[in-house]
């Protein structure tokens, strides 16, 4: 794991403390915030396009819904997709990297060549096609089993899996590089000559040693997945109304910017919340990486 002094050293910088603060506030607000709103704020109301006021600090949208409430709901979905998607990519990427690095030779070559190829293909485009191909089927499947939760959240589940499926490449590369260096160390040779199985060597000896670097890249994968999700939702092909994510809110916001009348708060508040969160995540990820691997 990370050395005990690492976290303290990183948090000595004010920018790191601010970043951590932003993340805690956004996560807490996303978790409990939406529940605190009275019902009249959640449902469509008569007050269309009201600018920010004390009653509606972020203004209201086309349907008279409170934008702050929508932004927090969006934060909930975006954060869940980001975290869960990153977790999927973590498993895939580290498993792939561990196997490639440990096997070495031709297997390693072929596996990394495949990563190179996938890198150069417009992956999000395939995800778009994939989601639209499978969403209906997953919903049918859920209806047959009578899984209500899966029917309403089928998009989110598919998004988590597919985005995890495309964001594992960097993780695989990093893990493989680490394993290549580690496996020449004497404690691995010792384990091998003692006749330990490959599986045990990988899980007991290699994995614990690369855990810190995995955690660092996990911090950097979360914002990447959030950005991917918002990209899909912005195009109207990700999260569907009435659910909202930062991407779909920003799509509404971008449409409200026009020469006739600009409802700037529809764009500004979701954009500010999302950018602050991503900035904080990226900053902390960078700091963690620099501390762990000063050469980079």
């Amino acid at each position, binding site marked *: 794991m990370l050395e005990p002094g690492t976290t303290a050293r990183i948090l000595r910088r004010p920018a790191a403390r601010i970043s951590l603060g932003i993340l805690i506030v956004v996560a807490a607000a996303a978790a409990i915030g939406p529940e605190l709103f009275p019902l009249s704020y959640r449902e469509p109301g008569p007050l269309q396009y009201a600018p920010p006021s004390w009653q509606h600090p972020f203004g209201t949208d086309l349907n008279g819904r409170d934008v702050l409430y929508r932004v927090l709901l969006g934060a909930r979905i975006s954060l869940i997709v980001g975290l869960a998607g990153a977790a999927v990519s973590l498993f895939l990427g580290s498993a792939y990297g561990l196997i490639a690095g440990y096997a070495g030779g031709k297997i390693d070559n072929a596996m990394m060549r495949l990563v190179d190829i996938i890198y150069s293909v417009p992956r999000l485009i395939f995800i778009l096609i994939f989601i639209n*191909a499978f969403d*209906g089927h997953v919903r049918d499947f859920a209806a047959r089993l009578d899984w209500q939760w899966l029917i309403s959240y089928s998009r989110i589940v598919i998004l988590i899996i597919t985005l995890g499926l495309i964001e594992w490449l960097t993780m695989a590369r990093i893990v493989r590089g680490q394993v290549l260096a580690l496996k020449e160390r004497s404690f691995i040779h010792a384990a091998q000559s003692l006749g330990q199985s490959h599986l045990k060597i990988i899980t007991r000896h290699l994995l614990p040693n690369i855990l810190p670097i995995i955690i660092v890249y996990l911090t950097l994968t979360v914002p990447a997945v959030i950005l991917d999700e918002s990209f899909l939702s*912005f195009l109207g092909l990700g999260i569907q109304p009435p659910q909202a994510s930062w991407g779909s809110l920003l799509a509404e916001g971008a449409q409200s910017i026009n020469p006739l009348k*600009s409802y700037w708060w529809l764009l500004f508040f979701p954009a500010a919340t999302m*950018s602050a969160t991503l900035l904080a995540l*990226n900053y902390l990820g960078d700091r963690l990486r620099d501390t762990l691997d000063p050469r980079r």
Partner: protein
Amino acid sequence: MLKLIIRRLPALFFVLFCVITLTFFLVRLAPGGPFDRERKIPPAIEAQLLAKYQLDGPLWSQFTGYLADVVRGDLRLSTKYRNRSVNEILAQTLPVTFALGGLSFLLATAGGVWLGTFAAVRRDSAADRLTMAAALLGLSIPMFVVGPILVLVFGLWLKWLPVGGWGSPAQLILPAITLAIPFAAVIARLMRTSLLEVLNQDFVRTARAKGLPDRTVVYKHALRVAILPVVTYLGPLAAHLLTGSIVVETVFNIPGAGGFFVNSILNRDGFLLGGVVIVYCALLIVFNLLVDASYALLDRRIRVDA
């Protein structure tokens, strides 16, 4: 270099084949056909439509037929934009997407390399920190936020540049900048890290010890080696730019291939969708091959055999 290209060719065709197959079957897996409307069409007419677009018969023979047509360069008819062929639509829209993508490519690489070098030679100064903070910001703000903000500031408030649309060079500026910003940020970070590492190497120290001026050391000796990671990134960059252009075209109302791509998914317009994906991937594959080849030329230490 030629040897490298010839050696890679079979694998490239295989990748392209996988792309075509994957797209074809993924589109077919989706529930609902291209002719599903609110009002049900009579079965006889639907059968005729399916026959016209060669969507009848067993799936396997449909696939082989499609594959044969694609090899011949015929991407078939769009099922949504009646009587327009996919080739026709792509011929009209791809130049637009490429103009946008190409300009962004230049902006991102030139801007990124310059910013990264600027920051690296001023290591740990205020200028360095400011540049890297800006890069982090550029990386964290999505394009569809930057785009509307630029429109709001330069289009609506200052009225310097057009808000959107296509046709004049002025209309290209804001979209290209929007598309380039996050990638310029990525390249700037890559460039800075790489240049700092190279500046610590022995041959740079030798060059300095010889008494060469700082400019020569950085720009003639170090930069040439330090730019290699950026060259490796150019392939993924092209893929990201094509994906990103979909959003930017939507934000700025640009009649490129991106809008047709999104609509083809929503309309279940399989051949148009397939056409866009195949052409995108084919171009990216060729581009990556060129990047790999140029990499071998740039760095003699690396033998690209694989």
